């Protein structure tokens, strides 16, 4: 049996845009009741922003401006919803596809493009954004997140009685990463130390070219059970479910409930990266099935039924074009970093060994007869 099939999941917004809170999920429904219209508009605006950004970055890669692009198209609801479910005190340890989560926490989008052009290593300050640098090595970020959460626990920053002081951690990873030992180790340590962490797995159903069916015999949300990490599956293309479930379990973690796993069932509409050709391993019918379950479309239907008018959607589309042209212009204007830059951040002060290496590199470059 395919581990993705016939499993109950939290869904509030159907693919047709119908909103309903199932009775057994009322605790999550209460989180939606607290949202204002402005929140709904913000969710949509950011999902659309994320997608426009993604499309433009894909084009820039095809035009030789980025070394690589990692599209998140189709996963916007999982990312924007959960991103807003994370509190401002909390820490986020992302994988390399979390452009949407980055948007919700104020990461400068050009920083991501710079990294994928190879002119910096991320560049944003995790201390300010609480959004840590992209974990490029699959699964490694989940260990980092668990370690951070254990530190939070040991520092006594959980269930202090003062909500402004409590803090929890969320880590993002994909279905492919669940097959890494790192994830199992993280579950074990998080459970044994009862640390405040939410494991957010975006099951986009393809680990590059390996389908979920070849990676697990049980639904992924149950992967943590044996370690002591309970889990739940949500419809990852439903931004409201993603928000509500994440917000609740982050709250619980801050209040001392220990680790929890959320499996967001979604679909990677695009390629794994710009170096991948998904037509080689999956059918057009499958892509069409999931395109029909697009997270933006169903939320747009929902908003229109709420009485949001055409003006809003036009404004969002215009903002998207503006964003696209801004990042296009900025990307073409990017300069290569100075040779010295890579030596600058090794030590806070100058260091003889580093100085020596820099000198060597300068001589080496000069040996080409250039002036650099």
């Amino acid at each position, binding site marked *: 049996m395919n581990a993705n099939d016939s499993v109950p999941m939290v869904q509030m917004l159907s693919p047709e845009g119908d909103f309903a809170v199932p009775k057994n999920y009322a605790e999550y429904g209460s989180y939606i009741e607290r949202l204002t219209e402005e929140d709904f508009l913000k969710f949509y605006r950011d999902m659309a922003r994320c997608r426009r950004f993604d499309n433009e970055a894909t084009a820039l890669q*095809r035009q030789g*401006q980025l070394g690589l692009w990692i599209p998140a198209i189709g996963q916007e609801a999982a990312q924007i919803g959960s991103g807003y479910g994370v509190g401002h005190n909390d820490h986020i340890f992302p994988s390399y596809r979390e452009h949407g989560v980055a948007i919700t926490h104020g990461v400068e989008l050009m920083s991501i493009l710079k990294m994928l052009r190879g002119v910096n290593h991320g560049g944003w300050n995790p201390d300010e954004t609480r959004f840590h640098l992209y974990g490029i090595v699959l699964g490694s970020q989940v260990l980092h997140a668990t370690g951070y959460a254990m530190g939070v626990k040991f520092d006594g920053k959980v269930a202090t009685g003062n909500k402004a002081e409590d803090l929890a951690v969320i880590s993002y990873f994909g279905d492919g990463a669940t097959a890494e030992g790192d994830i199992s180790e993280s579950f074990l340590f998080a459970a044994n130390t009862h640390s405040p962490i939410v494991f957010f797995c975006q099951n986009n159903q393809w680990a590059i070219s390996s389908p979920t069916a070849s990676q697990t015999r049980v639904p992924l949300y149950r992967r943590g059970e044996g370690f002591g990490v309970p889990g739940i599956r949500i419809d990852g293309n439903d931004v409201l479910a993603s928000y509500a479930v994440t917000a609740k379990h982050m709250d619980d973690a801050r209040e001392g409930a220990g680790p929890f796993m959320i499996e967001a069932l979604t679909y990677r509409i695009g390629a794994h990266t710009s170096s991948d050709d998904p037509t080689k391993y999956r059918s057009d019918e499958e892509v069409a099935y999931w395109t029909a379950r697009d997270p933006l479309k169903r939320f747009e239907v929902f908003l229109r039924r709420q009485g949001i008018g055409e003006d809003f959607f036009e404004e969002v589309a215009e903002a998207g074009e503006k964003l696209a042209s801004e990042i296009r212009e900025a990307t073409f204007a990017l300069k290569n970093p100075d040779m010295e830059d890579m030596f600058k951040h090794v030590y806070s002060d100058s260091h003889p060994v580093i100085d020596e290496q820099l000198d060597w590199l300068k001589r080496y470059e000069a040996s080409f007869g250039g002036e650099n």
Partner: protein
Amino acid sequence: MSKIAYFNLPDVGEGLTEAEIVSWKVKPGDTVKVNQVIVEIETAKSLVELPCPFEGVISELMANEGDTVEVGKPLISATVADGAVGATVSEAASAASMHEAIANVAATGAAAEERTPNLVGYGTADPNGPIRRKRAGAVSTNTSAITAIPAAAVPAPAGHLAVPTHPDTQVLAKPPIRKLAADLGVDLGKVTPTGLNGDITREDVLGSASQASVFRNLSTPAAPSEREERIPVKGVRKAIANAMVSSAFTAPHVSIFVDVDATRTMEYVKRLKASTDFAGTKVTPLLIMAKAMMWAVRRNPMVNATFTAEEIIVHNFVNFGIAAATPRGLIVPNIKDADKMSMLELAQAIEQLAATAREGKTTPADMKDGTITITNIGVFGVDTGTPILNPGEVAIVALGSIRPKPWVVNNEIQVRQVTTIGATFDHRVVDGDVASRFVQDVASVIEEPALLLD
């Protein structure tokens, strides 16, 4: 005001060098928008649609469907408005890619084909040679053909570095050669290149290095500042010490030596290496030496014995010990019943023993019950030595280095592969005549490995 812009084929897949044009989606005269798909290409990895980076009117499609285009070469030219984003690149980058465009479009002469070095490369092999970092300096040779093209007209592929240079100071040398030159203090600008591509070779650099500077890197490290270093005697080191003392002070040692022409052994090793049966197995002179010893043991069984107060136990099997230098010190594991093994089995057993020892995984059982030992000190470049017996054994053989030396053959001096076999015996068990015959027997096999057919 308008200008001509080019869109060069980018590397769309982390290290590709070329792509095939599958189909054009535009034709000359078409107006294109930013990100409008203009062409479908097929790379080694996938089919990819390329979106146009700028807005303009297509002037020319610079390749036909079915053509293979190198990364960095132009796909289209188009008339674009001044200041169009995507057609504006930084000065440094434009200089480089403009030259690439020109080298392809104009191709006016040999100057465009001039070979220049690239910095560092990666990706798939390019049958037409590497894509080279073009020198801005070389552009001047074809400026007459391209004055109509503004420098800023061509977008550069990401990360495409341009290094301005003086054409007359260009030197071609691969990075390891540059390092060698730097290490030896050789100025590459003063070396005459002899490489196929006009590049400087290792030999060119070595030839230019003065004797003194060649030796500069072989200097002995300076003595540590502490006057003494104290290393605790424990573990393997303690075991070695105890074994050596017990052996040296209980068994009266006697050592003898013989020089031998090992040329045929070396030829034999070479033939074994080339044979399909031994493919993937390590073959060294030590293997022949081991076989030679086992042959000699059969003719002189007394060297394969153990001395006890009451009796001398002569073993009719050989547990063949090999002294192994490991990071933790000397150990002597042995190959059980080595005399029953074929040449191939023995070769594999030696290889396995060495690998296990190097990994520090040799077990006490591996080191127990040895009957005779070899120590291959030749690998350290020394000729011979007087090894100390492995406790419980009565013979140990040292294989010295094998190197070309003058040797008398038929009253004439010839250059032969010569080695010294040294051996130490427990004189309580092995008398001088037995010891000598044993060593002579070993030496005769080294001189003529065909004796093993006996």
